[in-house]
Every structure is written in structure tokens, then in C-alpha cells.
């Protein structure tokens, strides 16, 4: 029985206003509620929070979900510790070019910083070793902090060859497949589970106005290598092997890059050679691409109807399998650490452990941040913001990732010299300038020369 519902203009306006108010206020109410719980949680720690009362800290970060998520938490930190915090944010490009110069000049500020190239920061002596701070009972309550609640990959990421931890993982991301189920349904297709299916599906879904798939391919070390890396690993390849040599010219790596290149060359959007993550996200969110494969963090934007036209149609899945090889999506955990030249290292450690603690992560997860803690991922507030299906897919991919092969390249002290030639090779394959074998052979020669130098 259909019942026609008629609304007067006034009723409609009132309804719209109530919805808008609800949408605007609900997250704040949820955050305020979580903040109350967190305040009680911090009180349970056997830590002298007020030990550095009156000090002030500077945090330098990129414009990033982490910095956006911690900003509203900082007043609570000041309330609990008496330490004031100034948060400076810059774009990723500005940040990555400015920080080495600042730290190279041994600047005492910032006290806490996001670390984009851990190997480089450690070998240059810019990142303070943290193990002594973890061992300081006045600063750190191990039982309360509960390291076991942190994902294994996130615990593993900061550990360096000398056994020291120089940073804390602050986010957990895994390469995840996104698909537009409405487009799949119209074409009578299912979410692809193998690489061959992925290619066939992308080709079938490609039209004059919609790309079959959108992924990163820009000739930039922060673009193609991360997503294409998951393809290389899933085909059984590696970038840097156990002996520290570049092995991108292996058959497995060539097969992975060849598949990545074919997908984008034959089913990608026009101009994909200039795609970074934001172009890929934009295409999928606007319905200009049927498939995407990038960071699980994209789910926060894709499932937000205010930012995405496909919020209701997006489905999330594991990276497709390549033959009999185990699926190894790329993973990533952003790092934060203490400036080795900071004059307020203990207060800085207090801030880092505060933000990365169980209650701290619950607060940032309420803003949709994919933190490193199981408890935060399971929280109702996070599930609401991130989406239950997206978080399930992300967790599956996080657990399939291989931190060792990731760290061998991305946390290498010469990571930039490794990833730049790889990015160029990926771009050349995608734009048809070279075949995968030739491009990767050239990249391998260049990388091995840089590693020897």
C-alpha cells in the first residue's frame, strides 16, 4: 500500500533545518561524550601528567587527517597536563621540503613532528630514540598504555635495525579496492577477486565518460610507488630484497607493474599520467571512475555524502589475488616522533603517548581517523564515521600486508633515491613510453647505483 506523503513548505524547511542541525551537532555530541570517557581513561594512568606544567610544545605536521583529528584533542591535553601546544600544519610538498632543511640546521623546534621518511630521519639523527622514554616509569605506564591493543604492523613499523624505536605509528592504512556497485550491477559484474578479473571488469566498465579504474601514476615518489607496490608484492616481487639490493627487474615485479600499467593504460582515465591520490579519489567519489584501489583512509571521504556522489554505491574489498601468490596489499602507518634537538623531549613524549594511548585514539577515531588501535577501530563512533564494511575490508588488508618488504624500501635511508626511479618507471609504463621490463631494468640499475654510492 502506497501512502502519499505531502509536506508543506514550512514542514519541509523545519525538517531540513532539524536534519542539518542534527548532522552538524551529532559528531560534536559524540566527541564530547567520548571526551568525558577519555578524561576518565587518562585519570587511570599511573603517570604524573602535571610533571611539565607550564611548558609549551610545538607540533609540526602536514595537512592530514591526523593533524585534523588531534587538533580538537589538544585543549584536553593542555587541561590534563598544563602544557600548551601549538600545532603548525603545511601541505605535504611544503612539509617534506622544509623539514630536512629545518632539522639539518639543528633547530630546536618543532618538539613533535610527523615523519615522512623514517630511514632518512633516523640516519640523519633527527629523530630521538624513544626506548628510554618508554622505560621511564614516571613518564609511561606500560600496563595502562597496552601495546597489545596496537596493530602488529603498527608496532613493527617504528622498529629500526638497531632495535630502537624512533617514532610511533599514528595511523594505519592498507591498500583497498573500491568499487561502484551500481555500475557493477548495471553491467552484471561482481567485485573482482583476481587480477585478471580486475582487468576484465575495468575494461568492461570503461566508457567515454567513465574510467574503468583510477589509480595513481604521477611521476612522483609519493604517487605511483605505493599503490603499484601492492601489485608488485602481490605478484611475489619485492623492491629491495633481504640483501639490500633493488630487485625491481625480477619477473614477478615486472608482471605486477605490467598489470598496473595495462589497467591504467587501457581502462584508466585520460591524463592518468598526472594522477596523484587526490585525482584518483576525486574520480571515484564523483562517479567518474568505476573502480579505485588506494588507501583504506579514502573510505572516510567516499562514504561521506557531503563529499562524495557515490557514498551509497561504494563497496570495499580486498586487493585481488594474482595467480597463486598470497595477496600482499601495500600498507602504511604514518609516523610521529620527537625532534632530537628539542629542549622539551620528555613533555613531547608525554604528548605523543597521550595522543596514541587508548583514550587518545578513541577521541581521534571519533573524528574518523584510522588510528593504530583495535579498540578505536571497534568503537561505535569510528564505525559510524568510517563505515563498517570499509573498516572490515581495511582490517583484512592490514592483516595481509607485509611490513618487512614495505619497510625495506619506504623506510630505507635512501628511500627517495629508491622511489623516484620506480615512480618514473611506473609512469613510463602507464603512459606507454616504455614496456615494463625495459623501464624497470633502467630503474633497477639507477637504484642499485644510488645504493652503492
Amino acid at each position: 500500500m502506497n501512502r502519499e506523503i505531502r509536506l508543506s513548505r514550512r514542514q519541509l524547511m523545519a525538517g531540513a533545518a532539524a536534519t542539518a542541525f542534527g548532522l552538524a551537532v551529532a559528531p560534536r555530541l559524540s566527541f564530547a561524550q567520548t571526551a568525558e570517557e577519555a578524561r576518565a581513561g587518562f585519570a587511570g594512568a599511573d603517570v604524573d601528567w602535571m610533571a611539565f606544567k607550564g611548558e609549551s610544545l610545538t607540533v609540526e605536521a602536514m595537512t592530514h587527517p591526523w593533524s585534523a583529528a588531534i587538533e580538537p584533542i589538544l585543549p584536553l591535553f593542555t587541561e590534563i597536563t598544563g602544557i600548551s601546544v601549538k600545532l603548525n600544519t603545511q601541505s605535504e610538498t611544503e612539509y617534506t621540503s622544509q623539514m630536512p632543511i629545518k632539522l639539518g640546521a639543528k633547530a630546536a623546534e618543532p618538539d613533535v613532528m610527523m615523519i615522512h621518511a623514517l630511514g632518512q630521519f633516523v640516519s640523519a639523527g633527527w629523530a630521538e630514540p624513544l626506548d628510554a622514554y618508554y622505560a621511564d616509569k614516571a613518564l609511561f605506564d606500560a600496563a595502562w598504555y597496552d601495546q597489545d591493543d596496537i596493530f602488529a604492523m603498527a608496532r613493527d613499523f617504528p622498529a629500526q635495525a638497531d632495535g630502537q624505536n624512533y617514532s610511533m605509528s599514528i595511523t594505519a592504512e592498507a591498500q583497498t579496492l573500491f568499487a561502484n556497485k551500481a555500475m557493477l550491477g548495471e553491467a552484471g559484474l561482481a567485485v573482482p577477486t583476481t587480477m585478471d578479473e580486475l582487468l576484465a571488469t575495468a575494461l568492461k566498465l570503461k566508457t567515454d565518460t567513465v574510467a574503468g579504474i583510477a589509480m595513481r601514476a604521477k611521476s612522483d615518489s609519493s604517487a605511483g610507488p605505493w599503490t603499484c607496490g601492492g601489485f608488485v608484492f602481490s605478484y611475489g616481487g619485492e623492491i629491495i630484497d633481504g640483501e639490500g639490493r633493488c630487485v625491481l627487474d625480477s619477473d614477478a615485479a615486472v608482471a605486477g607493474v605490467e598489470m598496473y600499467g595495462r589497467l591504467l593504460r587501457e581502462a584508466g582515465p585520460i591524463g592518468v599520467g598526472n594522477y596523484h591520490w587526490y585525482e584518483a579519489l576525486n574520480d571515484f567519489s564523483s562517479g567518474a571512475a568505476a573502480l579505485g584501489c588506494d588507501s583504506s583512509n579514502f573510505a572516510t571521504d567516499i562514504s561521506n555524502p557531503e563529499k562524495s556522489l557515490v557514498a551509497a554505491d561504494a563497496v570495499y574489498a580486498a586487493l585481488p589475488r594474482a595467480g597463486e601468490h598470497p595477496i600482499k596489499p601495500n600498507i602504511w602507518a604514518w609516523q610521529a616522533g620527537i625532534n632530537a634537538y628539542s629542549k622539551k623531549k620528555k613533555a613531547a613524549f608525554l604528548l605523543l603517548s597521550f595522543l596514541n594511548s587508548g583514550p587518545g585514539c578513541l577521541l581521534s577515531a571519533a573524528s574518523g581517523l584510522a588510528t593504530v588501535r583495535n579498540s578505536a577501530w571497534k568503537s561505535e563512533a569510528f564505525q559510524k564515521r568510517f563505515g563498517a564494511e570499509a573498516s572490515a575490508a581495511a582490517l583484512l588488508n592490514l592483516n595481509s600486508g607485509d611490513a618487512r618488504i614495505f619497510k625495506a624500501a619506504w623506510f630505507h635511508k635512501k628511500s627517495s633515491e629508491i622511489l623516484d626511479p620506480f615512480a618514473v618507471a611506473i609512469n613510463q609504463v602507464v603512459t606507454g613510453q616504455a614496456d615494463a621490463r625495459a623501464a624497470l631494468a633502467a630503474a633497477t640499475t639507477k637504484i642499485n647505483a644510488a645504493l652503492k654510492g
Partner: protein
Amino acid sequence: MPLRQTTIQRAERSFILWMLAPATILMLSLTLVPFLVSVYLSFTDYSLTAPETINWVGLKNYSDLLSSADFWDAARITTIFTIVAVGIETVLGVGIAALLHHEVRQAPWLRVIYLLPMAITPIAATFTFRLMFNPTQGVLNHLLGLAGVSPSAWTAAPETALLSLILVDVWQWTPFILLIVMGGMAALPPEPEEASQMDGAGPFRTFFLVTLPRLKPYLALALLFRLIDAFKTFDIIFVLTGGGPGVATRTLNLLAYKYGIEFLSMGYASALAIVMLVFTLVAGQVFLRRLGLFDLKD
């Protein structure tokens, strides 16, 4: 008397030196000192990741650089970009100046319109071009579509990326040539042109045989500035292509950025910067001497 004069002269000289000192010290500390530091670093293996260990490596950075395919590839791309962009800008700048020379008296606002691109902040203009070049949502492909031409990948395709960058540079810097040439035309006495016309020469003949040779000093100045500036172009390329696709637009400046800021190899990057400086100085001298364009006696 002579003694007194000397004392006054000495006092004057001392006063002048004291007055010049702040500006001189500032200039030396901002230009000469960094330059000398760069020269020193170019002979070392200094890396920001190992700041404590600076080793003197002699000419190694220079020999590595000059034997590197990346360097010669970047030099080739830089040369093509510089010559083509400045060439087009010169032809357009001189052409528009010749057309406007008589018209601006009637419509002075035309000059303002033509000079606008130069007045816009380069980075803002570049980001606008980035939107315009967007293959799916950009206005350029929309216009091509209206004309029945298939869309182009512009900055994302190896065939069109460098051309797209040249297009932006031409749009932004043609007004610079235009400004200097128009200034030159306004300063030239009109009698030779009038005599040429009275002798029966047409406007083209008059322009090429009478006006253009007299514009040589102005053109030389404009070209020299533009060649040096185009050779160092960074912002347009960094924002629009980042040196890609592949390395299709990786110029020497982009390569220096890559080694200095991304790889943190300051020694090698300094050597590259010094080579660029030497190249600019030598090319500038050759340009001025060979073409004799800067001979103000003419």
C-alpha cells in the same frame, strides 16, 4: 688649503663608505656568501642526512654530473623549453608591439589588458592552468570537443607535456617582451619610418628594414632577461608536471631540486647549480657577443 681639502675628501669618503656599508653587508651576506658556500659544497659529499661528515671530493661531483645521462637529458629539455618558449614570446611580443604601437594612443586600455598576465602571481596562474589542462573537467578539452577535436591529455602525455608548459610560459611572459619593445618603439624618433614610407616602402618593409634593426638594443635586453629566466623556470613545471610524464619535462632546475631537496645530496645539487650558473654566464656572453645585439652604438 690642499691639506684641508684632503681632510674633507677623506671625511666625505668615510661618510659615503659608512652609508654604503649596511646595504653592502646585506648584499654580500645574501648573495656572495651563499654563492661561496655553494661553490665549497660542490666540492664535497655533503648530505643533509649526514651533516657531521663532510668530505672533500674534489671534482667528483662535476665529473659524475657531466657523465650522467640524467644531466644531459635535463640539459636537452631545458634548452628546448628555453629556446622554443622565448622564440615564440619574441615573435608574438614584437608582432603585438608593432600592431599596438599606433593603436594604443586611441585605446590605452589595450596595453593594460596585454600586460595583465605578467601582473598575475605566477603560482596562481599556474594553478588556474592546472584546472584548465585537466583532461576530463578542464576548459581546454571542452573547447576542443566543441570544435570536434578529440581530447588531449595535455600535461599528462609525453608528447604534449613540454608544449603545454611552453604555452603557459608564452602566455605569462610575452607581455614582458611586448613591454620592452613598445617602450623602445616609443623612444625611437619617427623620422626614419616616415622617410621610408615617403620613399614608397610598405608597412612590412618599413618595419623589418627600418624599425626592427633600430630595436636591436631593446630586443637584446628583453631576450637576455627572458633567456636567463626561462632557463631557470621552476614553478610552472613543478606544479603542472613535477618533471613528468616519466622525465619528459625534468629540466636542470627540477633535477637540482630533486637532488637537493628530495635526495638531500647538497654537494651534488650544488655542483649542478654551479654548472647551471656557468652555463648561463657563458651562453649570455656568447649571445651578446656573437649576435652583436647589445651594441648600443648602432
